[in-house]
C-alpha cells in the first residue's frame, strides 16, 4: 500500500516496467490527487462553498528521443493501461525527425515518503467555524470615513491537500502529502469619483495555524488604509530620475519575474518560446547582472512555505539554488531533461500542477537575500526619492528584461525622511538597471504567496517570493 489509501505501489511499479518493455528508455508514472475546499465570502456573507477532487495518473515516456505525456482520471487498471499506451504513442509521434533527442540526466534519485503534519489540521475546525472566522475578519473592517467608502470586499478561502506517488523506471519512488491554505481577497473603494482596488493573497503549506500567523483582519484593514491614502491623501506622482526604496512585496515580485523566470533552463532553451517566452540569459554577454549586494536564492525546502517540497516531480532531492550571487549570474533551474542538454545534474526544479500536467522547470520560493541595513539607514542617505510600500500593477517582457511597477501606497522621501503620499507612482527599468542600481539591502525578510503560471496547457503552481527592503539609486519614474 501507500500513503494514498487506494493506490498499490506494486501495480505502479509493474506498469512502469511495461513502459520499458514497450520501448521506453525512460518511463514515469505519477499518481496525483488535489483535494480542496473553497469558501467564498462577499461583503461579510457566504456566497457559497465548493469541494473539488482532481485525481489521476500522469505518465511520461521517452522513445527514440521523443517525449510523450498522457494522463487519465480513470484510476482502473484499464484506465492506467490506456494512459501508458497513449504516452508511448505520443513519444513515438514526438520522435519523428527529432534532432535534439530528449534524455534524462543521471540523478541521485530518492526513495522516500514525506508528509507535512500541520500544527492544526483542517479537520480540527468544522466549516461553520471557518466561515465565522472569515466573517469576523470582515466585521472588523473600517469601511468608511467621510466620503471614502469601501464598496466591496470579497474573500476566497481555500484549503487543499496534494498527494503524490511518483515512480520512475530508473528507480525513484517518492510519496508525499502537502496540505496548504490560501486566502485571496479583493477590496474595492471609492472617493469623490475616484476608484481603486487592492487584491492580496496569503498562502503557506501546513494547516489552520497559517490563518493564525496571517491575521486577515489586520491585513485587510491595513490594505483599506492603503486605499484611503491612495484615493484621499495622495498627490500627483513625481517624474524623472530619483532614488527609490522598495518594500519586500515588490522586491519579491521583482526577483520572481527578473531573476527566477529568466533562470529557468527550459525557457533559455526555447521550450516555452511561444508561450511564456524566452530569457535574456539566452543572449546575455557577460556574467555580471547587478551590484555586489545582489544575491537571489530559490529554495523549495523552506518549512511552511507555499512552494515547499523535498523531492521534485522527477524524484530528485530538493536543495537551495543560487540564481544570482554577489551580483553574478548563478545557476539555472533544471529538470532532468534540461540538465541532460547542459551536461549537468538536475537541481530538482521539476514540478507538475496536477495529474494532467507534465513536470516542467519551475520556481519554488524565490527571495532576495537580506543585507544589514535598517529601514532608517536605507532612508537617511536619500535626498530626493520615493518609497513604494505596496504595488498595484506590474509586468515584464517575454525575455524578462523590461519591467514595470506601479505603486498603490507610496511616499516621497526628502532629506532622509518620509513625506507626503503619492498616487500611482510608476517606474520602468531593465533587469540590468534594476540590479546594478541597488546600493543597500535591508536586514528584514518577508515572503508573499502567489500562483505562478507557465506551460501549455498552463500550469499554476504555488510559490513564495520575498526579500528585504532595498534601495535603488537613480531610477527613472514615468
Amino acid at each position, binding site marked *: 500500500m501507500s500513503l494514498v489509501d487506494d493506490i498499490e505501489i506494486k501495480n505502479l511499479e509493474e506498469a512502469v516496467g511495461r513502459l520499458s518493455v514497450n520501448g521506453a528508455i525512460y518511463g514515469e508514472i505519477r499518481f496525483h490527487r488535489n483535494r480542496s475546499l473553497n469558501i*467564498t465570502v462577499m461583503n461579510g*456573507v457566504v456566497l*457559497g*462553498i465548493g*469541494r473539488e*477532487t482532481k*485525481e489521476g495518473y500522469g505518465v511520461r515516456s521517452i522513445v527514440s528521443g521523443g*517525449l*510523450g*505525456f*498522457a*494522463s*487519465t*482520471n*480513470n484510476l482502473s487498471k*484499464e*484506465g492506467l*493501461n490506456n494512459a501508458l499506451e*497513449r*504516452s508511448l*504513442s*505520443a513519444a513515438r*509521434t*514526438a520522435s519523428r*525527425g527529432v*534532432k*535534439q533527442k*530528449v534524455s534524462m540526466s543521471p540523478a541521485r534519485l530518492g526513495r522516500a515518503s514525506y508528509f507535512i503534519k500541520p500544527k492544526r489540521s483542517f479537520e480540527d475546525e468544522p*466549516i*461553520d467555524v471557518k*466561515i465565522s472566522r472569515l466573517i469576523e475578519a470582515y466585521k472588523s473592517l473600517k469601511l468608511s470615513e467621510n466620503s471614502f467608502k469601501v464598496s*466591496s470586499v*470579497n474573500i476566497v478561502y481555500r484549503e487543499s491537500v496534494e498527494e503524490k506517488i511518483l515512480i520512475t523506471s530508473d528507480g525513484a519512488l517518492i510519496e508525499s502529502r502537502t496540505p496548504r491554505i490560501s486566502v485571496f481577497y*479583493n477590496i474595492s473603494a*471609492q472617493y469623490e469619483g*475616484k*476608484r*481603486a*482596488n487592492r487584491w492580496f493573497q496569503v498562502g503557506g503549506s501546513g494547516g489552520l495555524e497559517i490563518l493564525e500567523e496571517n491575521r486577515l483582519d489586520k491585513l485587510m484593514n491595513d490594505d483599506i488604509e492603503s486605499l484611503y491614502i491612495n484615493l484621499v491623501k495622495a498627490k500627483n506622482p513625481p517624474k524623472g530620475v530619483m532614488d527609490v526604496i522598495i518594500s519586500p512585496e515588490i522586491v519579491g515580485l521583482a526577483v520572481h519575474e527578473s531573476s527566477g523566470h529568466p533562470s529557468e533552463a527550459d525557457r533559455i532553451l*526555447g*521550450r516555452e*518560446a*511561444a508561450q511564456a*517566452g524566452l530569457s535574456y540569459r539566452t543572449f546575455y554577454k557577460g556574467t555580471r547582472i547587478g551590484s555586489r549586494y545582489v544575491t537571489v536564492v530559490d529554495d523549495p525546502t523552506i518549512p511552511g512555505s507555499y512552494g515547499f517540497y523535498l523531492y521534485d516531480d522527477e524524484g530528485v532531492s530538493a536543495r537551495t539554488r543560487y540564481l544570482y550571487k554577489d551580483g553574478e549570474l548563478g545557476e539555472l533551474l533544471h529538470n532532468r531533461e534540461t540538465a541532460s542538454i547542459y551536461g549537468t545534474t538536475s537541481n530538482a526544479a521539476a514540478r507538475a500542477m496536477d495529474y494532467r500536467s*507534465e513536470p516542467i522547470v519551475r520556481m519554488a520560493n524565490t527571495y532576495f537575500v537580506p543585507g544589514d541595513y535598517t529601514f532608517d539607514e536605507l532612508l537617511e542617505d536619500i535626498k530626493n526619492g520615493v518609497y513604494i510600500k505596496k504595488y*498595484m*500593477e*506590474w*509586468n515584464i*517582457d*517575454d525575455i524578462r*528584461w*523590461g519591467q*514595470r511597477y506601479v505603486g498603490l501606497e507610496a511616499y516621497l522621501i526628502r532629506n532622509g525622511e518620509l513625506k507626503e503620499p503619492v498616487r*500611482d507612482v*510608476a517606474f*520602468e527599468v531593465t533587469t540590468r*538597471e534594476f540590479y546594478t542600481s541597488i546600493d543597500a539591502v535591508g536586514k528584514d525578510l518577508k515572503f508573499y504567496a502567489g500562483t505562478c503560471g507557465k506551460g*501549455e496547457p498552463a500550469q499554476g503552481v504555488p510559490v513564495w517570493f520575498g526579500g528585504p527592503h532595498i534601495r535603488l539609486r537613480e531610477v*527613472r519614474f514615468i
Partner: protein
Amino acid sequence: MVWRATYKIKRGEIYMNEFEDVIERAKNIVEPLVDEYILLGTIKDEAMIKLAHGEISVAQSWNDIDLDMYIAKNERIGIYTINVKKLEDDIRKAVSDLEKLEKSPFYAPLPQPSGKSDKEIDPKIKNAVESGDLSFVVEDLELKNIGDAAGMITLSLTNELFLSSTGGKYSSSITKFNGYVRVFKDESSGQWSWTSTKYSLPLAKNAIGIAKELANDCNKLPRTKLEPGAYRVLLGPMIVGNLIEEVARAASAGMVVFGMSFLIGKKPGDEVASEKLTLKDIPLNRELPGFRSYDQEGVGTKNKYIIENGVFKGFLHNSKTAKLLGGETTGNAGWIMPQSFNLEITEGELKSEEAFENLKNGYFLTNNWYTRFQNYLEGTFSTVTRDAAFKVENGKPVACVERARIADSMPRILKSIEGITKERWPIEWWEVGTPTLTPYLLLSGIKLTIPQ
C-alpha cells in the same frame, strides 16, 4: 497490446451511454436531498503537440471524465466535483455541508431551461483524439519544413451531459482544432494563431504563413528603439483579441459584483467606445470552439451585442447576478461568474492593405502578453508587446522596434478607435482564452512606454 481493443470499444458512444447511467444514478441520490441541482458530466479527449526550434518538444494526450454538481437547499449554494466511484458518499457529504451555511445573497432560483442539445463534430478530429495520435498533423502542416519555430497544435473532443432539477436535459459534442506558432528569423519573430471546430488546414497554414511573413518582414528592416509618447497605432488581431477579452470580462456582471470591472456604473445606452466598435458574444457561431446552445444553468444561449456602434448594450448575466444587480439572465451562466463563449468584433470598412496607409505615421504592433490592470475599476493597465512590431512612416514600415509597452486606459482606448479592417481572424492562444473573431484596429493617441 490487449487493452487497446478494450479501449476502442469503451470510449465513444458506448462510453457516453454508461456515463449517462452514472448521471442518472447521481440524480436519484441528490434529488430527494436538495431543492435544486445541476449535474454536468464531461468526457474530454485531447491531444497536443508542442514545438520548439521546429521540432516536437513533447506530444501530450489527455482523457478526462468529470462530474460536477451544483446544489441549492434553503437558499444555500454549493459546487462540487463528484468522484463517480464514491457517488453516494460524495453527494451526501456535499449536502451536509450546506446545512452549516447561512442563506446566500447570491442565491436565485434556477431559471426555466430553454436550451437544446447540439453537436459540432469533425470526424477527423474525433478519430484523432480517440487514438491520441497526431502524427498526421505533422505531415499535413509540413512541420518538418517550418524552420525555427515554437508553438502548439491541439485537437480535442468534448462531450457534455447536462441534467437539472428544472427539467433541463441536454448534451453537446464539440471538436476543436486550435494552435499558434511563433516563427523566428534571426533576431526577429512573428506569431499568429487559429481556432476552429473543424480540422481546417487552410486556416492553420495561413496562420503559420503570416507568422513567417511577420518575422521575415521585421528582419529585413533596421531595428530601432521606440521613444515613449502617444502615437497612432495599428493593433493586430492577436493584441485586439487579448484586449477585447478584457472588455468582455469587464462586461460580466460577476466582475461588477466582485468589484473588478471598469464598466461598473455603466448602463445600457451609455457611450463607452468609438461608434466604429461593435462587440458581440456569439455562442451560436458553429465555426468557433466556444459554440454552445445552452449555458451552465440550462438557459438557451443567443448571440448578443455587448457594445453596438460604441454604445454599451448591457452586462452578461446568469440568474444570480441578474437578481443581485437587477435584470434578466442573458444565457451566459457559469454557476458563479457569467461568461462570454465566443467573441467577435464586427467587420469594418478598411481593407487590410489600406491599414498601413491609414496609419500614416505610428506603430504597427502584432502581439502582446502580460496584460495587468493598475486599477480594475478605472481600467488603467499596461501590456507588453512581443514579436514583430513596426515603426511606420508615410504609410510604410521603416523599422522594426524593440519590445515596448502599451500603458493606457481601457475606457480611453475604446474611444480612440478610428478604423477597423474588413478581414478578420479567429484567434485563441495563451493570452486569448475565449475564441475571438477579430480584425485589425487602428487607434490614435495610444500611450507607449519603454525603459530608457
